[in-house]
């Protein structure tokens, strides 16, 4: 059992993600967030649990549902909100938005608009760790929808052949876009792990302590040079594929069951049993709300991105050759 101070910190990180995404949902409804928004509300235990096992120099590649990964890896709320609200002060200068939040300074290689698109990036990042002799691992977050992408199968094979320091983390929320997982994938990830002789472990993606413990068990062998690892976390999808998705393809009972799995409520109950009272959690919540509101206010006040600067930013500047 994790001691209260660590669980409290994990709770704080999960609550930060939950409240940030709830705020985004409202901003989206109010027209302050353009484009598409894919929320990970309900899934917070996975990014928080996994990133608790990571060092700053470790790298993660993420998915279209990537806000949690970004914040759990350490992205600042100011740059996060400003990006998703399309401002010049955004972490990607307003050029990427929700689906491309990235922060190279903390090893966050980007949310990704392409299902499975982050898998080869994480594989390459793990290769770089290996070639450079760095004591780091790369994590490839992917959803169950990506199991049917060829990229996963190519990367499992390559990572195993080269014994890369790579942890494949599947967030299995049971839905690939508008269709249930069982209609999209004929195999099991565990069986794929066995086929490639890659250690596989499953964790309850609603239990942040379970995820953190499993992540440590997968990250450490990868860090020691024992090759790639797989962690599959069952996690609920509370929201639609995107904000505004009426989810008519989902039975109300399926949605209710998902909403019954609440990582934050589970952690709060456990903390209460350990003697952390509601007032302490309330104080954490108030601090989070303050930070979020400050970030939103700063984003609202920030400038729109400059088109000329964007045009000039298509290519990185090359050294001059004769």
């Amino acid at each position, binding site marked *: 059992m994790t001691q209260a101070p660590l669980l409290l910190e994990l709770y704080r990180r999960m609550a930060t993600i939950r409240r940030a995404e709830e705020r985004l949902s409202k901003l989206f409804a109010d027209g302050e967030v353009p484009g598409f928004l894919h929320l990970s509300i309900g899934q917070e235990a996975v990014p928080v649990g996994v990133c608790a096992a990571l060092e700053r120099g470790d*790298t993660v*590649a993420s998915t279209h549902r990537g806000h949690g990964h970004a914040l759990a890896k350490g992205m600042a709320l100011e740059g996060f909100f400003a990006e998703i609200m399309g401002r010049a002060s*955004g*972490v*990607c*200068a*307003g*050029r*990427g938005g929700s689906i*491309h939040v*990235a*922060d*190279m*300074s903390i090893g966050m*290689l*980007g949310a*990704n*608009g*392409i299902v499975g*698109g982050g*898998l*080869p*990036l*994480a*594989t*390459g*990042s*793990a*290769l*770089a*760790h*290996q*070639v*450079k002799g760095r004591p780091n691992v*790369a994590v490839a977050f992917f959803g169950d929808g990506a199991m049917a992408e*060829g*990229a996963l199968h*190519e*990367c499992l*094979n*390559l990572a195993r*052949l*080269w014994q890369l320091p790579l942890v494949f983390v599947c967030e299995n929320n049971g839905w690939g876009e508008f269709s249930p997982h069982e209609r999209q994938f004929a195999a099991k990830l565990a069986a794929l792990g066995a086929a490639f002789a890659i250690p596989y472990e499953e964790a309850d993606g609603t239990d942040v302590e379970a995820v953190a413990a499993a992540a440590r068990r997968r990250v450490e062998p990868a860090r020691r040079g024992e090759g790639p690892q797989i962690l599959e976390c069952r996690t609920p999808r509370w929201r639609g594929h995107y904000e505004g998705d009426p989810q008519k393809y989902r039975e109300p009972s399926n949605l209710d069951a998902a909403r019954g799995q609440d990582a934050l409520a589970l952690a709060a109950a456990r903390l209460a049993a350990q003697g952390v009272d509601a007032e302490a959690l309330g104080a954490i919540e108030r601090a989070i709300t303050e930070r979020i509101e400050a970030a939103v206010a700063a984003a609202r006040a920030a400038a729109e991105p400059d088109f000329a600067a*964007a045009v000039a*930013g*298509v*290519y*990185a*500047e*090359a*050294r*001059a*050759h*004769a």
Partner: protein
Amino acid sequence: MPETRYSAAINRALADAMAADESVVLFGEDVAAPGGPFAVTRGLLAKFGPLRVRDTPISEAAIAGAAAGAALSGLRPVVEIMFMDFMTFTMDALVNQAAKAHFMFGGQCSVPMVVRAPHGGGLNAGPQHSQCLEAWFAHVPGLKVVVPGNPADAYGLLRAAIDDPNPVVFVEHKGLYGSKGELPESPAPVAIGAARIARAGRDATVVTYGAAVAWSLRAADALAREGIETEVVDLRSVQPWDEATVLESVGRTRRLAIAHEAVSAFGVGAEIAACVSAKAFGRLAAPVARVGAAFMPVPFARSLERACLPGETEIAAAVRRLMAPA
């Protein structure tokens, strides 16, 4: 100046770049132990070891995607795609990931990677091993595309491509690997985006690149015997391309043909023709001509492939038409 084969010039550029920078790594199908399907990477495994020179499985999407990820994490990967036709499997990595990362992450990172791939026909390799697809990549903001036509440019452009902070598609030609040309003792990088006047002439300009440079030079020899002096501009890079050199040449000769092995429709020649028409319309004494492959998959049979691909004869004919009185 010693004569060097095109394939050896590429090999030397790889070796020199790897010796100069430990971040440069090489991987692809059969590039390490077998030394490359066209022997371009022979000897590099022995020189630089298995950490930096690796054979991959036949997984083009993972090869290109891992190159992008490695480039984001501090390496300068050079990867080989055995035939340019197989780049269809690399499209997500190149088009959605590598090309856009610098831009869409707000300039936080660059993606210094090179994808080497041979294009071109002439080997009766059939519809899936002969295509020239460089225009696809030139169409994507964030990618650079170079197509060297001789050993010195192959060396110099590859050094520049490896040095470049952006993803570069480095297009080789299977038919050129055995060709020879001069390579200085201490060859220098060649700036990406700079064309080269391969032959000076006053009557017409042929803008070309890759294997078609040699065809254009032979066409110019034939035309010279008829009293037509043709200027041949070797673009060397198609993205970015050297608009200034082309406009300057056309401004003098007032006649332009663009010759490449790729099909003409929606191709590199179309882009150049549109640009010249927009910026030098008043200087043109004849409509811009394009020479390219027939709009068809590259066929297998010798006679069919010969009829499909352009060459010296088609380029010379196009220039003669430019010279004919309206």
